[in-house]
């Protein structure tokens, strides 16, 4: 197996008396999309910014593409793409000028037009950055993060402020980057985003990873009881079971065909997530 893209061991970082990151462990394999979930203040952004080389840690071991970000040099920066939470700079430049000037900082950048097309901004290429909508601006952020052909891409809450359609096309873009061999670490508040994109996800709480798995298996999700509902004479029946298929087969036999009002519901990623971060689902 190849060396992991990101390796974090026993990471600690405190601000004053607050322990923002408190013994966090993380491994991201090459070529996967890894999502970091967690409530605000859980230590997600601090962790990601330590990985990006923006912040210094108090203790622990960190390696990104085999290099400690603390000693990040230009060569390392050219292999790492960063999409920060928000930026509104260079408002006077057009989208094309902005992407093209960033491309010149990298040893082997992607073609500016190609990147602009990939994020769906081709018809805005000549628009000044300051005139873009929030979602368009966010797509420009992504374009600037990937123009240098990074091997490793960090995305901090990339789709905040997107409409559903923009979000779907953004997801396609991220998947195509992964398929092209880019390792991606993203933080997000959206469970549907993690479910759709992530190969694996980690739930962070109080500066520590409290759960780590594929989205479909997180927090023992696959083995939790499913809710099976159906109606008899307009009355709702509900049964909880770990073997919903068997129950549905039995119901089908009982009704001699279609089961009226049949519904099978597994706990959603959001249910599991809320349980893990210690909030009670309504």
């Amino acid at each position, binding site marked *: 197996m190849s060396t992991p893209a990101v390796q974090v061991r026993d990471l600690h970082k405190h601000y004053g008396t607050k322990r923002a990151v408190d013994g966090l462990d993380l491994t991201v394999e090459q070529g996967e999309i890894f999502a970091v979930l967690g409530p605000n203040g859980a230590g997600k952004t601090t962790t990601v910014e330590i990985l990006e080389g923006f912040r210094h840690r108090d203790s622990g071991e960190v390696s990104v593409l085999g290099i400690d970000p603390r000693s990040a040099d230009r060569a390392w920066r050219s292999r790492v793409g960063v999409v920060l939470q928000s930026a509104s700079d*260079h408002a006077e430049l057009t989208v094309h000028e902005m992407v093209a000037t960033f491309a010149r900082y990298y040893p082997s950048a992607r073609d500016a037009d190609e990147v602009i097309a990939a994020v769906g901004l081709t018809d805005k290429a000549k628009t000044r950055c300051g005139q873009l909508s929030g979602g368009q601006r966010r797509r420009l952020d992504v374009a600037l993060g990937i123009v240098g052909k990074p091997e490793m891409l960090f995305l901090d809450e990339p789709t905040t402020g997107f409409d559903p359609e923009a979000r779907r096309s953004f997801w396609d873009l991220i998947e195509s980057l992964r398929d092209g061999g880019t390792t991606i670490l993203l933080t997000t508040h959206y469970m549907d985003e993690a479910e759709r994109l992530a190969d694996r996800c980690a739930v962070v709480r109080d500066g520590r990873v409290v759960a780590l798995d594929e989205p479909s298996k997180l927090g023992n999700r696959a083995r939790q009881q499913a809710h099976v509902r159906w109606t008899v004479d307009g009355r709702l029946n509900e049964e909880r079971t770990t073997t919903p298929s068997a129950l549905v087969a039995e119901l089908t036999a009982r009704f001699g065909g279609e089961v009226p009002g049949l519904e099978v519901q597994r706990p959603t990623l959001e249910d599991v997530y809320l349980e893990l971060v210690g909030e009670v689902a309504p």
Partner: protein
Amino acid sequence: MSATTPAPTTTAAHAASAATSTVRLPSLASMALERTRIELVQFFRIRDAVIFIFAYPIVMLAIFATVFGQDGTRVGPDPGIPFAQYFLPGMVATGVLLSSFQNLAMGIATSRDEGGLKRLRATPMPPTAYFLGKIGSVLVTSLVQTVLLLASAALLFGVDLPSDAARWLTFMWVFLLGTATGAICGVAFSSVPSNGKAASALVTPIVLVLQFISGVFFQYDQLPSWMQTVASLFPLKWLAQGMRSVFLPDWARDIEPSGSWQHGATAAVLAAYLVVGLVVAVKTFQWRRRDDG
């Protein structure tokens, strides 16, 4: 199909791409030039700022020359210096201060606020290229501004510009040193205000006060001596005095408080600000907003 053809090609291509991806980073010079270019593109698109920076010294020169020189009064003993000519050096100096110090102190603070600096920091562009780009663009804008000012002074106010090489040589070093010092001090000062809005509230009064006490708006030798002393602690006074030595007749040194142009002291003070500003800028420069953890 023969097994020999495709395999070696692929291996060679892989080896080549691996080699290029690790070695060839763009040169510092190419990135400094690119930063200069992009800074200039941005500068010239903010029309209000362009008009302000280029027109301010010219408008000020027009007002002061007209107000003070309306009844043909001149500065100094006979034959005297026309007011437009006397104020020209101060306006050149203040123009340099605006396009270097004020422009960068406010511009960088705003860019930091917008997250632009942090994003640049995440790229392989070295910080030196960013600073060289700032200095390069300031040199270009200062030069354009000064040329416009000198042309207006000569064409609109009939100021005789020097014709000997020695004076233009003095102009060159005072201009370059003044611009570089103003730019570096602007970079250093950009970390003082807590955000972009505070920057203009903080920088504008400082620049204004310096203009009043440094002999830009008033005849320097007529200011109270304590004010002259305060002014001599700051670079603008020296920049203005250096420019007076370029644009005023030789005898005008007699109306200087020190009775001389003090070129040595001018170079020393500006260079000291340059060096100290550089050290402070390097030590205190922040790529992130102050509230960003």
